[in-house]
């Protein structure tokens, strides 16, 4: 096991974590500000990827596609908030889960009706194709760009929340919803904006990841599950928690898939070790979540202190 391999796996873990962060940031914001469990967040990820793939295919330009993916997901998010979600704030979490689960089915079927059941083609932009030499190993240029992109978006999000008027309202909304409404902030508008912001982040993640994965109906649900794990670990409602949780999940999952089969290989023959190792690796992040729930039920960085 060489240093080059470990470094490459670390980069893989960080890149995976940052994309998870884009997904979980929106999920945790929506829960923190509105107290809403949004299962349809994965569908917004899918919408971003499909719009990006469709526009990139039509124009030949990935960046136009990315813009369309972000804008389209934001618009879909705003529309969903106004038409459906708005009616759910006062309701029980179970009602919210039921309604947003219905949205998953409707959106998946809608996308299938428009784009068909077969995966779409979306390739990485020409300027980010191929791999670069990092000295001790080669690495995919596009994955490096994803890391840069993820860091930039995280910084932007931090600035937005820490330094702007909208950010103050979001933080106030997380602390006390009734009070900021009483202070004259248009809470309905704020909710729509926060939901659209979360949707835009999910759409961005879908479009970016879609270029190296398969753009297909249902692509959002596996990521949604991981995003829930991330926000449970990080602390529901906390952006900082989402960041730390996402990086933890990304690195632990990647390293587990890489190291556990090798560790099992010390005790078992190769085929068995691969099976046992792979099975254990797929459980690892859920074990982490269980540990966090036992020792810090509020998550690592609880939003409300």
């Amino acid at each position: 096991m060489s240093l080059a391999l470990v470094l490459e796996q670390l980069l893989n873990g960080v890149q995976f974590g940052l994309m998870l962060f884009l997904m979980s940031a929106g999920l945790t914001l929506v829960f923190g500000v509105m107290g809403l469990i949004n299962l349809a967040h994965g569908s917004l990820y899918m919408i971003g990827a499909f719009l990006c793939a469709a526009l990139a295919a039509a124009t030949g330009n990935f960046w136009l596609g990315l813009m369309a993916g972000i804008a389209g997901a934001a618009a879909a998010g705003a529309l969903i908030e106004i038409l459906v979600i708005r009616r759910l704030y006062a309701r029980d979490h179970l009602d919210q889960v039921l309604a947003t689960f219905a949205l998953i089915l409707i959106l998946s079927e809608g996308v299938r009706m428009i784009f068909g059941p077969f995966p779409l083609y979306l390739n990485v932009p020409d300027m980010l194709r191929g791999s670069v030499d990092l000295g001790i190993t080669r690495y995919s240029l596009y994955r490096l760009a994803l890391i840069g992109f993820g860091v930039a978006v995280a910084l932007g999000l931090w600035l937005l929340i820490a330094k702007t008027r909208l950010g103050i309202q979001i933080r106030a909304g997380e602390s006390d919803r009734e009070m900021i409404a009483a202070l004259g902030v248009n809470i309905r508008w704020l909710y729509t904006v926060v939901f659209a912001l979360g949707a835009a982040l999910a759409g961005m993640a879908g479009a970016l990841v879609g270029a190296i994965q398969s753009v297909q109906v249902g692509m959002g649900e596996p990521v949604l599950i991981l995003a829930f794990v991330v926000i449970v670990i990080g602390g529901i409602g906390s952006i900082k928690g989402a960041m730390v949780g996402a990086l933890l999940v990304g690195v632990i999952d990647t390293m587990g898939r890489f190291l556990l089969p090798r560790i099992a290989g010390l005790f078992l023959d190769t085929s068995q070790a691969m099976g046992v190792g792979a099975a254990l690796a797929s459980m690892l992040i859920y074990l982490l979540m269980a540990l966090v729930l036992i020792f810090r039920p509020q998550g690592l960085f609880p939003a409300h202190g």
Partner: protein
Amino acid sequence: MKLKMTAIAALAASSIGAAQASEVTVGMITTLSGGGAGLGVDVRDGFQLALDMAGEHNIKLVVEDDAQRPELAVQIAERMIQSERADILTGIIWSNLAMAVVPSTVAQDIFYLSPNAGPSALAGANCHPNYFNVAWQNDMLHEGAGAYANELGYENTFIMAPNYPAGTDALAGFKRYYEGNLAGELFTQVGQTDYAAEIAQIRASGADSIFIFLPGGMGISFMRQYEQSGVDLPIVSAAFTFSQDILPAVGEAALGVFNASQWSPDLDNDANAAFVAAFQGAYGRLPSLYASQGFDTANLILSATAKADVQDRDAFREALREADFTSVRGDFAWAPNQHPIQRVYIREVVEVDGVITNRIVGVAFDEHRDVHGENCPM
């Protein structure tokens, strides 16, 4: 809605033609949503095309989506047997779902005709007179890939498949014929979308080639990421990872890959030419091997219904065993365990008139049969 209409049409048909042999109800449980949807859609469309081309027949087809979930597939199977009174079940794509559904189905004196999954556990000691596999036993095509890896002179291959019955069968099949060293062996998760951790290990392994079995969306994700990784080792595979359902989405990254298959769109026989043309006419796309398997399964059922009444299970089973239909893959015969004996071709991914597809470049085995059949008491 569609189901209701079929039911009404079937009801009308049955009241008119009551004097004919009893109607055959075929329940199709297949994957129509999620990352494996392309495979199920092709099996369904191929099956439907064969019924449409046959014109008048008394087969009632009921289709349901299993969403690639074993527990759902079991529920659907129970419902189809109990409520729909299905005589034949078919359609399952994934081996773990087949393992959950097939044994209890055939035990209830219902036929199961597999258009895709062929787990080794059902081909050997657990074979059953009511279970027919029209496609292949899982190991078969991977054995072809292993044999061809020798021919290509590969000596240090890295092998990888998802961790489920068809994945273990795939690696076992490849290793049965491959004579070189293994640079590494990996199981991934079913439905995995990110292969960065695996590609890093391939890079570090010092392999001279890789063998992968990653059907559906898994194959698209892997190939896209592999292309960008800077690892440039040749790939040898079975048809599943380089099939027509995913080639348009994989794009040029797949060009030049050799893969083993019992069928190919350019296979030169009359039945296949007619099938490919009719499929393109009906659905506006090239068929995949899954579509060819659905098409063959329907034609096998049609051949048996022409000879026997499905209510007479023994007579119908004999009719199925005769396999009196023209397979689009060419010659078709049953081994004693009711899995096919067939030729395994080597195909290469090529671009023809702007369409990425497969062309036959060689033959891996003639009259190939699976090894598990030896343990089958039939």
